């Protein structure tokens, strides 16, 4: 598995470059510049954002024990985007680091809000109440982002990025946010044993010595850091966080010691593939990766859901 994973990751950054080479320019010099100044940072950004989305998705599904949960569906991505858009609309374009902090604040606020609403129901937190709360918060945040973007006609193009997610715009953010990415991944790794017990239900997890409070806090912190990083890098990309955990489970089974690394690898691979596809399909322009993922991902997910009974997590 480790070997297959490394092959997968290794092949992705190079194949889009080769495709690009073959399709567009046999002329060397511009190609060099294109690759060095645009393609390479964009690929790195895609890998980083993909890792974040994949791992955040797996953690979200693990903590909610819900096969249709992902940071996007739970309002976390949109919350992060809203925080950035709102501040940008009022105070102008921010530095990547400031955007990252805003993204984390928004993501944290949204996740806490969703968990609070989801838990406030009389029967406690069930997967259904959680998803409903997530849908409500997502709708609210999406509506507010759209409203702000439409009211700022001048800044439409920069802000539009925060509506669907793209790898094309924010390639300069990675140097500022990588520590958050590492912190999120570290927390995710530390969360793995607890996730493996939580998969057996909260009562069994407690019986096996997992402190629910500590495990949940670490999990929410990791999800917030990873989802916030992903949004800062690439905007609110839907579907990756939902799709990747299912692919990972189909590949490596139900053990989070394998699921988390596999989600990181598959997340990066999926995002790069979708981004490349978006550039090839709409040439000479491009479709942003968020649109491609929705268009390709949705039917794929339907097939997945129909082929095998939607799995219990």
């Amino acid at each position: 598995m480790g070997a297959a994973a490394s092959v997968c990751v290794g092949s992705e950054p190079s194949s889009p470059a080769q495709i690009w080479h073959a399709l567009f320019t046999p002329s060397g010099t511009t190609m060099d510049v294109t690759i060095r100044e645009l393609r390479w940072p964009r690929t790195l950004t895609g890998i980083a954002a993909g890792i974040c989305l994949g791992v955040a998705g797996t953690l979200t599904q693990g903590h909610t024990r819900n096969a249709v949960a992902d940071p996007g569906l739970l309002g976390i991505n949109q919350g992060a985007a809203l925080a950035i858009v709102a501040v940008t609309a009022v105070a102008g374009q921010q530095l990547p680091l400031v955007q990252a902090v805003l993204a984390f604040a928004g993501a944290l606020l949204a996740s806490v809000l969703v968990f609070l609403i989801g838990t406030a129901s009389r029967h406690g937190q069930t997967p259904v109440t959680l998803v409903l709360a997530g849908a409500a918060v997502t709708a609210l945040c999406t509506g507010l982002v759209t409203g702000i973007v439409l009211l700022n006609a001048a800044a439409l193009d920069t802000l539009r990025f925060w509506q669907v997610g793209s790898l094309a715009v924010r390639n300069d953010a990675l140097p500022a946010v990588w520590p958050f990415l590492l912190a999120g991944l570290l927390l995710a790794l530390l969360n793995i044993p607890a996730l493996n017990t939580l998969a057996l239900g909260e009562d069994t997890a407690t019986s096996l010595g997992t402190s629910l409070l500590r495990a949940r806090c670490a999990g929410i912190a990791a999800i917030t850091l990873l989802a916030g990083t992903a949004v800062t890098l690439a905007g609110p990309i839907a579907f990756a966080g939902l799709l990747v955990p299912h692919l990972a489970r189909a590949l490596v089974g139900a053990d989070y010691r394998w699921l988390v690394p596999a989600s990181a690898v598959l997340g990066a691979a999926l995002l790069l593939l979708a981004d490349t596809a978006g550039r090839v399909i709409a040439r000479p322009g491009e479709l942003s990766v968020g649109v491609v993922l929705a268009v390709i991902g949705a039917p794929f997910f339907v097939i997945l859901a129909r082929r095998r009974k939607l799995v219990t997590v």
Partner: protein
Amino acid sequence: MTELPLPGRLRAESLTLGYDGRDIISGLTLSVPDAKVTAVIGPNGCGKSTLLRGLGRLLPPRSGRVTLDGEPLAKLSTRHIATQLSVLPQTPSAPSGLTVADLVSRGRHPRQKWYQQFSGADQAVVAEALAATDLLDLADHPVEELSGGQRQRAWISMTLAQEAGILLLDEPTTYLDLAHQVEVLELVRGLNRRHGRTVVMVLHDISLAARYSDHMVAMKAGRIVAQGTPAEVVTPDLLQEVFGLAAQVVPEPTEGRPHVIPLGAGLRV
């Protein structure tokens, strides 16, 4: 009979438990007999599952306390408790694709550190737990493909791998046919006889409970009405008082344990 104090590692002292502002159990005191199988019986909603959750620290007390070796559970780390006591909830569920061996391995969680995952010793304990529950042949099968009885055996096997001396089982025979119920109860009694495990289990079937336990606790409306040996507890008077059931109690032919013959609940049809 009710007040008979038995020394035990696990005790409930003036325990009050409840959900949503309603007390289910109030002021209950119980000492779980060590190295014995204790069965808790009582009508639906009498609080027997709630008591088990309280004993297993899945539900924190409103007042009173549960002690393990004299220490209140609230003062002990949940991981330390997990090395001494294991709780199996009613109808637990495993994620798709999880194999029996994976499930049983997770019983090792309280004894593992994040920097030191699965060791050879862990592997040996898991193999032993699988053997004790007769699941070695099914180790690589997904849990969801097992029969009800096999699945329950797999979960019990996980608690065995936990190597905790005290085992709390919440209705381990729910949804099982009679043969599978007996299969699970035989296993539970074997764990007690061969491995010296202390077992507390909530059961619905009084005759099966009497057959497979050493000590019985009868509950009604959140209180303990009677406890003692099966012969002491399972009497026509008690069945009338606790369940409102007119019944005869006869000795069953193998070991002479009390067997309940229901006469009817007094309904005219």
